[in-house]
């Protein structure tokens, strides 16, 4: 069951790198939140501990509901619906995303040989998700897509923390939540300011400062 959920998570990243509709990105983020919630619930030994409750709230409430709702609001208000001219064509986007998956799995194969204390499927898919999130940030032009690529990077990091054999201390979960929540809040704030100032949401407009 767990393996199936993780593979589905990996498939969502392939879906993201091949689509150009921005609402699809947001729905993928919500889907990833729900998948992470499933993994947290299935994985845990002690229910009703503070750490477990915190993780449940973080995945189900923040990642699956609040943040996608917030992003949808921004998209609908600014009427950005399509990512029309990404930096590379969509076909090569999906090719490179598959290669990133291959690389991630090679890394996890190395980890089986050289170190034995992590679930290799978790590790491979989380590294692949992180690099694919970075790839989406690099190859897309709209700022809102950059923000969503950052969210996927965070989801990959969260998946990596879930794959630890020993428990991470609570303070680090707090750190992840701080990162995500305040980050999104500040991103949204700045995004509205950029929208108000520039009236366009391309990063092509953010090229004034250069040498």
């Amino acid at each position, binding site marked *: 069951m767990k393996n199936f959920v993780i593979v589905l998570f990996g498939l969502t990243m392939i879906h993201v790198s091949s689509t150009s509709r921005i609402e699809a990105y947001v729905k993928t983020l919500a889907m990833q939140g729900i998948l992470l919630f499933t993994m947290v619930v299935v994985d845990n030994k002690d229910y009703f501990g503070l750490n477990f409750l915190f993780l449940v709230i973080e995945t189900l409430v923040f990642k699956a509901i609040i943040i996608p709702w917030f992003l949808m609001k921004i998209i609908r208000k600014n009427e950005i619906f399509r990512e029309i001219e990404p930096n590379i064509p969509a076909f090569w986007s999906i090719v490179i995303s598959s290669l990133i998956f291959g690389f991630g799995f090679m890394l996890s194969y*190395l*980890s089986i040989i*050289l*170190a034995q*204390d*992590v679930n290799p499927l978790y590790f491979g898919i989380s590294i692949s998700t*992180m690099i694919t999130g*970075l790839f989406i*940030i690099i190859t897309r032009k709209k*700022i809102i897509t*950059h923000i969503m690529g*950052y969210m996927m*990077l*965070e989801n990959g*990091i969260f998946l*990596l*923390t879930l794959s*630890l*054999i*020993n428990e*991470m*201390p609570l*303070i*680090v979960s*707090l*750190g*992840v939540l*701080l*990162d995500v929540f*305040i*980050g999104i809040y*500040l*991103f949204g704030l*700045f995004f509205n*300011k*950029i929208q108000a*100032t*520039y009236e366009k949401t391309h990063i092509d407009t*953010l090229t*004034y*400062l250069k*040498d």
Partner: protein
Amino acid sequence: MIPMLFLYPVIVSLILFFINSKLINILALLGYSAIYLACTATFFFAPAEFTTYFKTDTLNIIFIAILALVFFGVAVYNIYFSYHSNEIPQRHTRYTICFLLFVCSMTGALLSTNLGLFWVFIEATTLTSAPLIFYDRTKSSLEAAWKYIFICSIGISLAFVGIILISMGSAQINSLYFADLYANSSKINLFWLKLSFPFIIIGFGTKMGIAPVHAWLPDAHSEAPSPVSAMLSGTLLNCALLGIIRIYKLIDTAGLIYYGKTLLIIMGMISLLVSAVYVVKIKNYKRMLAYSSIENMGIISIAIAIGSTGLFAAMLHTLAHSLAKASFFLTAGNILYKFKSKDINNIHGLLKNDKFSAWLWVLCFLCITGFPPFPLFLTKFLIIKQMYVSGNYVILLLFVVFLTIIMAGMSVSVFKMFFSVEHHHHKHAPDKNIYDLFAYLPQCVFIFILIVTGIYMPSFVHKLISLSSKF
């Protein structure tokens, strides 16, 4: 004494939020910097500890001292800056609150004994300094603030990945305290440690400003108001440097020292290359200072990687660079206020209009590029000597070539500004008053400290630096 450093900003911020007065803001900032200096002085006599999370030791005492000095100078300059800034009191209050919280989070990062807590505080510095960059509310500062917050957030996330990988490798130790990690470094699985070090270097290197993850630095440091630029360049880069040093020490005790050195030298060399390429034809003098920061962080990385005498040189370079760069940025603020332009070609008649700033400008330049008697000459000399002694001739050659190019590029711009003559007299002389003293006082004090350190280092300074270099 440590709780005072944390309580003051939090409480005073709450108070300032309800009182919207510029004068109270300025006094609050000055008060905090005075308390900071006093606490730092007590740290010299006895190491302090507050719960198990915050502790001063031989490594971070020097960083705290740098932070205290630079913060005091910037708080004094802030009097001049706030007096001449035309913002409404609410915005100025927001600026002061963010400033206080920014210094508080840097303190937390420097003092923390736990890797996870260190990461949380570095994240907090990003979040609290972003509104500071956006103080001017112009289009370009919005762009700079967005780049800063986005790139630094990505970098911090990658640093978090590195922390997770270290935690995976140290599963038997099951703790993220630095002391525990150092003590049990033989039990760490080397594969995970090796995999995590690039993530840590790239992650914390993004905050530190070494290439190739330096992209936010020129924009943020040039668009921020001058006191903020001085703080960012003089103190924030050091906090990230502390993180890299601590993990480097872990790599060293685990036996992967050659791997760590290679990575640090590569990043340092790329920083020097990037800085050399961009600083030669620079048009904006504040960006020139920012590229100089990148160069100096590269030099520090190379110095740490070279080892033995290089470590002493790295610590001295940190101290001297922070003081010199802070005074450089504050002087740039003076010039910006007088001439209202960041373009080098628009500065005419500097010597005639503002003699003191002009001479400070040249003195700071001499200090930053390592002329004797300033201590940066000493550090570069020690690094070159250590490179020669240990036989790294190629690195030595590249190092010297890049430094020469950078010095040449900067000197063209600096002296163009110093010597350019006004063709027609502009009437842009604001009336002089007592607050102008504060525009020059911090820089003079910093340069005096630097001259003293360069000519004849007092023994306690020498002891401080050599103790910290034995990490």
